[in-house]
């Protein structure tokens, strides 16, 4: 697997973003025959119909494409393009129906979506374009093709679960202006129990450190009820020690969506007192909080 990753010769940074994306899209598509785009490393041949954990095929579907203003103030309004399917299995996913099903939504019509995104930016309705999911990493070939049709100077946001493989990171190096990355769980036990993902913290930390070196980085943490001490506190401690300047958005608007009812502590919203404690922890660690 490592050898295969090392053999991929990616075009260098001298190319424009559009041409870089176009060239890498073809290379990324070829890797679907032995898929290692995320850290699940399923190694399935998606070109022949095999499916890994994410169940994704070789072409992407999207379930939303619209202007939104609920993200970070410095990024909005954004034209948000949401890809169906994800490699995590978060029980509380607010878009669980679409994120757990890569066939949800509609086929990605790249020309039409790129046209709408371009119009939104050119007409002043959006100042950024955001690629998100589900999880867009699992659809890198189509994402890169889409990027190759977007304006060279558009500010592109990569909204991710930070569970990408080293191979995937190489494909998106130099493509996106901002990584908007989730850091959901502060310990691997909660990650395994709530998102069925092993070794979560090591993988996410590797991705965040890489992203911070290669682009602008904003880290998001959704405060979950009953998980301030076990999840937010260790995340805050790690960020303070390893990415002390990074912008952090602490989200307190958790609601019990999708399969959250299967976990008793997730059957409620985050309480006012938990939100306050979470903010105190952030201040104690001198985190660079943004809204």
């Amino acid at each position, binding site marked *: 697997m490592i050898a295969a990753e090392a053999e991929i010769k990616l075009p260098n940074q001298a190319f424009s973003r559009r041409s870089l994306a176009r060239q890498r899209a073809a290379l990324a598509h070829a890797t679907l025959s032995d898929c290692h785009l995320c850290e699940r490393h399923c190694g399935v041949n998606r070109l022949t119909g095999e499916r890994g954990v994410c169940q994704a095929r070789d072409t992407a579907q999207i379930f*939303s494409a619209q*202007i*939104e*203003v*609920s993200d970070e103030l410095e990024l909005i*309004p954004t034209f948000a393009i949401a890809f169906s399917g994800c490699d995590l299995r978060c029980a509380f996913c607010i878009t669980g129906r679409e994120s757990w099903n890569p066939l949800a939504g*509609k086929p990605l019509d790249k020309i039409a979506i790129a046209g709408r995104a371009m119009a939104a930016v050119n007409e002043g309705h959006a100042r950024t374009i955001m690629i998100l999911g589900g999880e867009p990493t699992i659809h890198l070939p189509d994402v890169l093709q889409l990027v190759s049709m977007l304006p060279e100077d558009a500010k592109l946001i990569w909204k991710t679960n930070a569970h990408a493989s080293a191979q995937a990171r190489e494909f998106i190096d130099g493509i996106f202006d901002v990584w908007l990355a989730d850091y959901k769980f502060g310990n691997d036990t909660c990650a395994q129990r709530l998102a069925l993902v092993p070794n979560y913290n090591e993988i996410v930390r590797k991705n965040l450190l890489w992203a911070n070196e290669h682009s602008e980085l904003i880290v998001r943490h959704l405060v979950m009820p009953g998980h301030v001490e076990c999840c937010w506190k260790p995340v805050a401690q790690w960020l303070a020690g390893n990415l002390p300047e990074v912008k952090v958005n602490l989200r307190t608007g958790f609601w019990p969506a999708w399969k959250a009812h299967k976990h008793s502590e997730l059957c409620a919203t985050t309480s006012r007192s938990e939100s306050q404690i979470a903010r105190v922890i952030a201040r104690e660690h001198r985190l660079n909080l943004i809204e």
Partner: protein
Amino acid sequence: MKTKSTFYEEAELLVLPDGKILAHNITPKMAALLSSLDPKNELMKQRGVPTLQNQIHETAKGN
């Protein structure tokens, strides 16, 4: 006409028994609505959206 690449705009709201409203995937029009419900909400104001009155007016003009 709704084409393959067209989606209806969507936002989701959760209204809690204490009157608190949580919102997801907020569109500019939804932000205007939420802002009109709670004009003192600075965070929603910072979303830089036009007022609901303007939005309604624009919609009417479009018809």
